[in-house]
């Protein structure tokens, strides 16, 4: 896989430099500058919202630092969690004196690192709460939903938590809305081709020339099945069916994210969205604020994911609150 890069050892550094040069609202902070914070600094008295994760998923994670979204973000090497130190740096940058919500995907390393960082933060009298993204329905049965890994659907919780924090709400309230959003968000992805970690000898995984894998994780973790490529509509039907199997019965409104894993172009996303919208409509659901594009990627991985966020009044109004970061603007 050809990449337009320099020395792979400098991949993350140069990428973060470029990101902050292009978006002056973002600044690298911390000892090794592996946290991104808002350049204008933290509003005193506001709850901070931080996230963190490995590189290679832009716009996730750092791209969502902005008004009404994240205040800071710790960033690791490609597909590797941020270091404990970076987590500490992000928490420190997002500390406005009212506590910090750590909102990130449910991955073992990230969890442990944020946990250790939170223990350090507590020593500095910074109160933290943790909410984990667990939207990937391919990664555990409904009975063990809390064990699911976090994928693209995490951005819905960024949005509601960020909007809630912007209202001046307290940490507990911000954590509660984040958790509710996570609980009401489900994602399923389908991968068509691999990606390659810069400097690695080969692709991250192998997939046959006409094979696809349903439920594959954003680092290439095995999914539910691997079969022949089939028509998009058939795939969407299966995906929507899986997503609706866990549909809460208290709402008829849903937000949808049709997300490119990387190299799958907009054209295909719209073809997928078209069918998804038809199916949701047939299921009696009204779509609110659909998002279609590369929101959470794995570099040049091929494929797409569909996320549903089942709305209630509170989530819907927070999703509609003004927000602005380099990759997502709500007016």
């Amino acid at each position: 896989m050809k990449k337009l890069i320099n020395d792979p050892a400098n991949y993350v550094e140069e990428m973060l430099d470029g990101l902050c040069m292009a978006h002056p609202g973002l600044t690298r902070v911390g000892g090794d500058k592996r946290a991104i914070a808002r350049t204008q600094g933290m509003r005193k008295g506001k709850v901070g919202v931080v996230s963190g994760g490995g590189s290679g998923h832009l716009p996730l994670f750092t791209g969502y630092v902005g008004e009404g979204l994240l205040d800071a973000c710790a960033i690791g090497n490609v597909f590797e969690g941020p270091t404990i130190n970076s987590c500490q740096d992000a928490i420190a940058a997002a500390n406005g004196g009212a506590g910090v919500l750590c909102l990130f995907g449910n991955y073992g390393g990230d969890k442990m690192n944020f946990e250790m960082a939170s223990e350090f933060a507590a020593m500095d009298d910074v109160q933290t709460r943790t909410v984990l993204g667990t939207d990937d329905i391919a990664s555990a049965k409904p009975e063990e939903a809390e064990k699911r890994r976090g994928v693209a659907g995490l951005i819905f919780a960024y949005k509601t938590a960020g909007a809630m924090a912007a209202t001046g709400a307290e940490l507990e309230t911000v954590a509660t809305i984040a958790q509710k959003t996570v609980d009401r968000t489900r994602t399923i992805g389908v991968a068509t081709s691999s990606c390659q970690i810069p400097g690695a000898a080969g692709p991250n995984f192998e997939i046959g020339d006409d094979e696809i894998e349903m439920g594959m994780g954003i680092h290439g973790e095995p999914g539910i099945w691997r079969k022949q490529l089939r028509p998009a509509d058939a795939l969407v039907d299966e995906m929507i069916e899986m997503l609706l199997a866990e549909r809460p019965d208290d709402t008829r409104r849903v937000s949808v994210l049709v997300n490119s894993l990387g190299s799958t172009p907009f054209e295909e996303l719209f073809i997928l969205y078209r069918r998804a919208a038809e199916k949701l409509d047939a299921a009696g659901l009204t779509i609110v604020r659909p998002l279609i594009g590369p929101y959470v990627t794995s570099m040049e991985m091929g494929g797409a994911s569909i996320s549903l966020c089942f709305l209630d009044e509170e989530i819907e109004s927070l999703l509609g609150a003004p927000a602005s970061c380099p990759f997502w603007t709500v007016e």
Partner: protein
Amino acid sequence: MTITLNTLSTAIARAHAAMSTLTDELNAADAKLGDGDTGTMLARLIATFHSVDVADAPDLGAGFLALAKAGAASTGSSLGTLIITAMMTASKATAGKNEIAWRELAPIIAAIRDSAMARGKAELGAKTIVDGLDALAKGVEGNTTAAETADAAQQAMDAVLDAFRDRPSAMGRARMFAEKSVGLDDPGMLALAEIVRAVASADHHGNSPAA
């Protein structure tokens, strides 16, 4: 013959040297059900350890703390964080000491196992590095020399890999493929075993690192 900062420093050097061949092997083991980075991650962490001047630390506790601190800035993987947790545990256990007897190693490894369980929330039997640490702690118990300890450690690691190979994983990325994990070594446990082999085999052949 005791465990000193030199022992620690030599062990790190050996582990570091071994990573040149281990990296790919461990990545491959992790790639079967995980994200294929165990080797790369461990190589970087051990290289970081190797760049720390532990031999010049004021005491063992400070040496382990220096490793933990350097590591905390260099890795973000779950295994890496567990290893950093281990270094912090070892640091507490050896605070202010310039040497410890070989028979004191077993309780330290047991404490590391416990702190790893507290940090990672893995149960014993879930087929993770925790089971490796458990077997290692029990295996080296009662040994009083480097050579004896090395022997016992290697046997314990071989045995625990064998014992768990055909059991399903119940933790981490491999959890969701419990069935597929039968027949495969857990990458973290395998990593521990290979590092133990690299560090211990020299001792076993009478080439003791003890100061």
